[in-house]
């Protein structure tokens, strides 16, 4: 791309392996803080399993609260990986190069974190084993494959497996470089992981073909995962505001919106933390922001469709939910914050080129999107349940407890911890991708102007 300078391969190795071969001062304190928060959250989870789900705010009729909101949120974040890596690879966008690995890795860790949410939500997580093994533990009852709750694990495990394998295949050349640049036990481990990688013509051709093929295969999985998660809610006819046909694409586009915003934020942090200004340039951030404008507008279209058709039928109970969401305190405040932070504020901040190149403004916009998207799931799931069935003995609606808050905070710390630990053992920017971009760079002379260009194989 236009602003980068071509660096010698040895310099690229040194810069991009710096996270593995050296340890910056902030690293261990950051790991320590994240580990501490994860430990506290784990203790709270243990306490919850011991005392029961009653310590949370969950009660009839609101059976799904913070945990499921958080589950859907992290599944959403996981969609950035395929969006940036697969779709942009198929579209031959040069600016995906520094972002793809970080996005893919964020996908894996978000998925793993998301999976912990329904597991602890069961109250007795060991009973998941009854689901997993095709054995009649419960006298004639077996997981009901007609339920979206069973489609969920099939989709999420498929996506997780695919993402891990996708990252692994792309890491093999980088393991080769690490094998050649380390000593001692690390060299032995990287040698084993590199599996004898030489970098010959055949192996590189397979890497390229595999990248395209796996991208094409993982794309349908990416679309299906969040669609299936949305059908956890969309299939339910008893909860108003949930039974809508648009949920599948609405959730997928929302996931891309929140996921790509999260990746942009992570890239800005990496650029600052490791001094990767030559690799994660403002032009990459700017290109990602332009993509986000399109995605955000698509999301806003689906959001409007969902609201419009919610009230289209003029059904009394559906109107009641919408009145709760839009006109009743505190939901109306949450609704306003959600719409502003998810769409209007970020779009304003991304609307001008000079603002898109200001990393502080872009970071603010990306954080705003993720706050908004978390609130979106909250405002989508809770009001419908509140009004689902009014029991005579239901005295209160849902108030999240401090334990839920700690566990949710723990998930953020867990993902950050995973990313930090990953950065210590594997490169967060694919080295060969950057080098390939450099060797393909050339120029075309148009009159007196030299226009940057790339060589293309097809």
């Amino acid at each position, binding site marked *: 791309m236009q602003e980068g300078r071509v660096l010698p391969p040895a310099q690229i190795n040194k810069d991009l392996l710096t996270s593995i071969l050296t340890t910056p001062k902030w690293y261990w304190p950051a790991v320590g803080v994240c580990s501490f928060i994860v430990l506290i959250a784990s203790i709270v989870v243990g306490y919850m399993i011991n005392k029961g789900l009653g310590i949370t705010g969950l009660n009839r009729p609101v059976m799904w609260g913070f945990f499921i909101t958080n589950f859907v949120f992290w599944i959403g974040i996981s969609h950035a990986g395929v969006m940036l890596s697969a779709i942009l690879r198929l579209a031959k966008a040069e600016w995906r190069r520094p972002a793809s690995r970080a996005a893919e890795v964020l996908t894996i860790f978000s998925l793993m974190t998301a999976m912990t949410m329904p597991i602890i939500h069961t109250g007795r997580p060991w009973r998941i084993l009854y689901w997993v093994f095709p054995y009649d533990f419960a006298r004639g009852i077996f997981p009901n494959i007609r339920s979206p709750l069973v489609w969920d694990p099939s989709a999420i495990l498929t996506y997780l497996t695919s993402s891990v394998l996708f990252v692994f295949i792309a890491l093999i050349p980088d393991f080769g470089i690490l094998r050649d640049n380390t000593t001692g036990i690390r060299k032995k481990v990287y040698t084993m992981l590199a599996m004898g990688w030489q970098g010959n013509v055949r192996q590189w051709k397979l890497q390229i073909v595999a990248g395209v093929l796996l991208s094409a295969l993982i794309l349908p999985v990416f679309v299906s995962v969040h669609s299936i998660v949305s059908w956890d809610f969309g*299939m339910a006819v008893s909860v108003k505001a949930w039974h809508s046909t648009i949920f*599948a694409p609405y959730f997928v586009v929302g996931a891309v919106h929140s996921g790509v915003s999260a990746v942009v934020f992570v890239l800005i942090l990496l650029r600052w933390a490791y001094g990767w200004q030559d690799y994660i340039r403002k032009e990459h951030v700017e290109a990602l922001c332009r993509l986000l404008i399109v995605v955000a*507008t698509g999301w806003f279209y689906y959001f409007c469709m969902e609201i419009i058709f919610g009230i289209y039928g003029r059904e009394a109970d559906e109107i009641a939910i919408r009145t709760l969401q839009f006109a009743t305190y505190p939901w109306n405040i949450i609704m306003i914050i959600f719409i502003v932070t998810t769409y209007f504020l970020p779009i304003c901040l991304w609307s001008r080129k000079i603002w898109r190149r200001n990393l502080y403004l872009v970071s603010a916009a990306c954080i705003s999107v993720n706050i908004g998207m978390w609130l979106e799931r909250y405002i989508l799931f809770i009001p419908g349940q509140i009004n689902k069935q009014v029991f005579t003995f239901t005295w209160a609606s849902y108030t999240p407890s401090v334990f839920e808050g700690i566990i949710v905070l723990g998930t953020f710390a867990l993902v950050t911890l995973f990313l930090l630990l990953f950065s210590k053992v594997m490169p967060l920017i694919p080295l060969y991708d950057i080098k390939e971009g450099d060797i393909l760079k050339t120029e*075309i002379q148009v009159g007196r102007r030299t226009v940057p260009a790339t060589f*293309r194989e*097809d």
Partner: protein
Amino acid sequence: MFALPVVSCLILILSATPDMSAALKNVTGLKKRFYTIIAGRWNGSKKQWLVLQAAIGSLGGIYFLMLPFVQFLIATDLGMSFIAGWKDSIFPAIYTLMGFQTSLAIILIILFIYKRWGGYGNFIGDSPFWSASKILLGLSLLWAYHTFAFFITFWYGRMEVEINIIKYLYSDVYFWVFLLNALGSFIIPVGLLVWNPVRRSAWGAPLAGVFVLFGALMWNIRHFVGAFNAGVEQIYEISITVVPEAVMPDIWDIFMVVGIIGIAALVYLLSLKMFPIMNVWEIKEGAMYQKMGRFIKGNYLVLAKPE
């Protein structure tokens, strides 16, 4: 709905302005008068080019933002509102998506005709078909995805109105039309476009496009004919309780459909007498930014990005 054709005409006229200016010397009569009014003051200055590109970009953005809204209006007003209880938030999205799919299909068919028989073989290579076929494949897959999302949501809850709508539009009354629709919009295009050699060829994507157009016609017949004929008796009900009967077309219906397609083709062909089929200035601009270049021992395409 009026604004959409106006904006698209503006885009057409603006993008043809430089070519009209270039053609002024060679035209006479009404065409000369028309070209003079539109492009008489065009001299190709830097400022004019910048304004032209900004205008096309802005109008394109406006068009793109208006299009889903128009599709939403047509889908709800002329479709959903006629079947009592049909509350389907994804229907406008499917209709919009089909709009993209069919317009791409028509463009590919026209490009192929002009490449093969129109004498534009030197200007239309295989690469537009290679690039566009991926988009057509993606749109066909998206059609199937959106349709399945609708279907499974309506099927799952076993609500009477939703099952009746599925029986009416999918599984019972208009089943054969749905089958033809699925074949045309998804099965055949995906079956064709999944193969690299087919996508690389000039005929592959246009052939898929022909099936896409047929599938879209079946989709529109199924939904809009179905909607208009869902029964006056049930229109004021909360939801349909009786699955309506199918309405078979008579000879006048077929004449009307053929006639409308004919009119569209006629208007298109007549407009080609006024506007060039390809923007000459865009072809020249594209040629400036690409060439074949030598990289070590191989020859590869060099593609520049000016911005």
